[in-house]
């Protein structure tokens, strides 16, 4: 029972603004970095700085090998003091990394139709998932079909569309302002399309703002379609100790009502969440 995990130092290779207030940061870590699954996250803290005090969780957006290094990418939106500081970091700046952490998406092999429903920055873990599923589809899961529903406020905020178009059978777009694709929310777009699927063959993955995921839960409940969502909550430790990132769930009676986004999630079956 020797400790086998440590805090890893990651060096920034790039930190570029891909859309207004949206950044992609690429971090180089040693090649013994544990294999990460789509839906897992890392905790990041600027090395040697007292502020921000706590590390912040970020979904893994992309991960790959490059010249005996592992490159982890995160996609983030500048929303507060912590992300402002992050956005100002540059090449060779160092971050402390914990991870990969949490429970990722379950891949259900007998579900041949996959619908990915992404809202805004929620595309981050789903884009990694789509790529992962796409690789499987080109190998041993050839009959798998992935359709991605991608929603954003406006055309310019449709991030990572190219990668998704590359790995999915179809990418269907919605924008709140109608500047691209369907004019309206991604949940309305998905709802209009849902009858085109055979429900016993369909698996849905979703991530986005809280009201969007709540809407997804309502839509899917009518048809009993399985769906996994990646949840977000304020976190302190990232390893299941502080009990800060509580999410209310109501499945098995023997489990506590509150589960931890960091340890029991961040990915949950959508029908286990009690939405507020």
């Amino acid at each position: 029972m020797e400790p086998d995990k440590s805090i890893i130092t990651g060096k920034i290779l790039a930190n570029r603004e891909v859309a207004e207030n949206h950044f992609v940061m690429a971090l180089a870590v040693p090649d013994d970095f544990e294999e990460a699954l789509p839906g897992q996250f890392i905790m990041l803290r600027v090395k040697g700085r007292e502020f921000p005090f706590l590390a912040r969780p970020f979904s893994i957006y992309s991960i790959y090998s490059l010249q005996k290094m592992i490159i982890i990418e995160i996609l983030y939106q500048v929303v507060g003091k912590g992300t402002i500081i992050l956005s100002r970091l540059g090449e060779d700046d160092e971050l402390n990394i914990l991870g990969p952490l949490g429970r990722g998406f379950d891949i259900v092999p007998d579900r041949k139709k996959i619908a990915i429903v992404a809202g805004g920055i929620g595309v981050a873990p789903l884009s990694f998932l789509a790529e992962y599923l796409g690789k499987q589809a080109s190998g041993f899961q050839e009959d798998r079909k992935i359709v991605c529903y991608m929603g954003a406020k406006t055309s310019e905020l449709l991030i990572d569309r190219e990668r998704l178009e590359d790995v999915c059978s179809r990418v269907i777009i919605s924008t709140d302002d109608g500047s691209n694709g369907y004019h309206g929310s991604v949940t309305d777009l998905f709802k209009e399309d849902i009858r085109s699927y055979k429900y016993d063959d369909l698996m849905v993955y979703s991530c986005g703002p809280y009201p969007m995921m709540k809407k997804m839960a309502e839509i899917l409940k009518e048809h009993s379609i399985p769906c996994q969502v990646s949840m977000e909550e304020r976190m302190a430790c990232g390893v299941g100790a502080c009990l800060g990132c509580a999410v209310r769930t109501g499945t098995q009676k023997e489990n506590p009502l509150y589960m931890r986004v960091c340890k029991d999630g961040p990915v949950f079956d959508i029908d286990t969440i009690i939405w507020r």
Partner: protein
Amino acid sequence: MENINIPIMEVNVGGLELKNPIMTASGTFGYGEEYSPYVDLNRLGALIVKGLSLEPKEGNPPPRIIETTAGMLNAVGLENVGIRAFIEEKLPFLKQFDVPVIVNVFGETIEEYTKVADILSNVEGIAGLEINISCPNVKAGGLEFGADPNLAYEVIHNVKSVTHIPVIVKLTPNVTDITSIAKRVQEAGADAISLINTLKGMSVDIEKRVPHLENITGGLSGPGIKPVALRMVWEVTREVSIPVIGVGGIMNARDALEFFIVGAKAVQIGTANFVNPRATIEILEGIEQYMGENGISDINDLIGTIITE
């Protein structure tokens, strides 16, 4: 042959023989398992687990935490699995390690405190109890046990009457005179005192004009509270003869050393674990290094050596 370069770190805290004075603070280290991938639990002086009540407690609705300047507020609401699930599901894991397990307990009535203490005292693998008296007394209109010297006395007196293992009392800083509470729990038979628990605080989202915490108020922890904790440890050590355990905002070895110098017999590392999972071990090593550099061969020679005149 004895290696003179390795300082003596053993301390006796109210009957608890510890290999070193570094403990984990309750509520910041889960039930030990969460941090075992990062920390060799055998190296800790003691491990204090998340506070337990007689029955499981679901805790408060989220959001439960918010970062503050130099710290954080939490309103977890004492969520825990209850003592039975702890004994059956969590304790077996901890028994694999050579580390004293101290169980932090709380209750809503004196009877509940006593019952929990009674049950836990007869379980193999529990070295001591830490009594959290910063809880509202449901029978006394919600007044905190720890805010009233006589209520605090009653709780500890009753707990002591049912247990033979060491009892540490964790004091709340949200009182007018902490020394009067400390003296009363000593009279009640407490074997040691730990202080401080979190300071009650609040934070507001100015865009939405709502509190950041669903519970409105929460407990402040982290480096911002360290001067308050240090002052209270200093005050209390001068008034009681039982050992005092310092806790509050210790982030590194230098912070911990300040507590030993003012008189703490041991320290607890809390919020620092969240920021750095290896904080406990790094603090232990940092203290040993300081002792080496300053020719201190035994940690007990450092305790209470503050010069104030």
